[in-house]
């Protein structure tokens, strides 16, 4: 399950998508929006995400394939929101189902790390004072 769009994230749908009778482990990650950004003390009023959707979708598929190659048989779901995301809501979710738990943690962390490092998605913060800024992820 790969999705990029404005709908709120339904984690149960991701979990259902990665389930299998052969799996004993499901690891999920939710990235949620915060009131302040690291290194900027201004309170955030709103967050907007923009994506190069076609390329981001292809990149999520590539991340899923790389995760399977590195961490063995597993099912993975990656979803990212676009547009306005309310404070406290999830902007991104990853779920990994696998036979054993180590692979589920490793693949889930690999997926979110890789997504943040390279997926063509951008975040704009709007502050209560009216200013805006595009926030780039720190290099890993």
């Amino acid at each position: 399950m790969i999705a990029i769009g404005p709908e709120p994230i339904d984690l149960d749908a991701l979990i259902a998508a990665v389930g299998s009778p052969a799996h004993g482990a499901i690891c999920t990650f939710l990235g949620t929006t915060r009131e302040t950004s690291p290194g900027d003390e201004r309170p955030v009023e709103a967050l907007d995400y923009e994506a190069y959707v076609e390329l981001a979708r292809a990149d999520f598929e590539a991340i899923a394939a790389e995760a399977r190659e590195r961490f063995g048989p597993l099912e993975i779901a990656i979803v990212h929101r676009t547009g306005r995301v309310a404070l406290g809501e999830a902007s991104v979710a990853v779920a990994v189902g696998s036979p054993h738990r180590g692979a589920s943690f490793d693949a889930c962390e690999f997926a979110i790390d890789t997504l943040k490092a390279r997926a063509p998605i951008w975040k704009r913060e709007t502050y209560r004072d009216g200013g805006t800024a595009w926030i780039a992820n720190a290099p890993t």
Partner: protein
Amino acid sequence: MALRVLAFARLRELLGFGERTLDVGSAATLDDVWTVLTAASPEAGRMRASTRFARNGVVVDGSAHVVDGDEIALLPPVGGG
């Protein structure tokens, strides 16, 4: 040669378009496209080092040549997650 150019995030704001067409001469490279597009915006121009190019959905160097009908995307530093 007609290209379709996509600009995202800060570059979209500075260049004033999210999507446009652009006519360039044959033998043009992505660096040439960049120079044309950012001629009117020094602030955008200064983002060259941190900007990646995609050509038809594949990330490529600025030295890559473009051909008629290409979809070119200008990708500033990403912030997803």
